[in-house]
């Protein structure tokens, strides 16, 4: 019998983190914690991408090195987008706080300053 960690294990961890992030985005009202939950979801997807990069079956005729590299490149770009997103998003939260002195998302129902 083959040993080692199955692909399903990594996918289960990724799915669990993603679901916790989804529930957090729905139930929390603090925008900073909502941002953290979005980061949690992005990282869960990164984990599944890397798991598929290692274990994913290669198509007939495809280069396995290229296939494994595609998943890692996707993770790199997700990280770059997440960094830009956090910088802008936290700037927006600070701007809202300076304007209203309150950052409860349920009270920010109007999209104007």
């Amino acid at each position, binding site marked *: *019998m083959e040993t*080692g960690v199955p692909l399903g294990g990594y996918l289960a961890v990724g799915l669990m983190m993603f679901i*916790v992030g989804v*529930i957090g985005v729905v139930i929390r009202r603090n925008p900073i914690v909502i941002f953290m939950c979005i980061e949690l979801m992005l*990282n869960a997807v990164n984990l599944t991408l890397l798991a598929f990069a290692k274990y994913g079956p290669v198509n007939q005729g495809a280069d396995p090195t290229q296939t494994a590299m595609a998943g890692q490149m996707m993770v790199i770009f997700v*990280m770059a987008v997440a960094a830009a997103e956090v910088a802008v998003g936290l*700037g927006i939260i600070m701007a809202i*706080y300076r304007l209203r002195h309150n950052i409860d998302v349920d009270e920010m129902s109007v999209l104007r300053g």
Partner: protein
Amino acid sequence: MMPEWVDGRTIMFAMLAGLAGATAIGVVAFGNAVRSALCLVLNFFTLALLYFTLDAEMLGVTQVIVYTGAIMVLFLFVIMLLNLGSPAALEEKPDYIKKALGFIFGGALFGVVASQVVLPFVETRQAFAPERYGAPQGMGKALFTTYVWPFEMASILLVIGIVGSILLAKRKV
């Protein structure tokens, strides 16, 4: 007695997976935003170790530098600034309807994805990636040949992000 497919790697993975799940729940469950942030730091470290178990060393190191090094410092900095202004700004009122709806929809999503995506791969143990596929040499080569256009686009995006956040921070409200 343990089943025969349990080896050192499996035990290591189980420990890391448990830690990742527990810290992920901690991020959502703690009422204090600083505790959530520290749980998230631990979660990102655990994820970096999970990347190492997948032989993606380069991305594991990048994870530690980018997420725990840069992004979490930004988070803690903003929490600190908001707490200095007024501690009441981070308080939350309970809302049971929203909680119930969140758990119902989260559970439904979990059921759908687990049955359709996770279950077919429970027995997949054969790795198709070549040895040392996560080494920096190969990744750098791919990044500057096949993926050079996305790479340049990412740099433009990061410049726009930097300029945008400076603009947001300096604007008079």
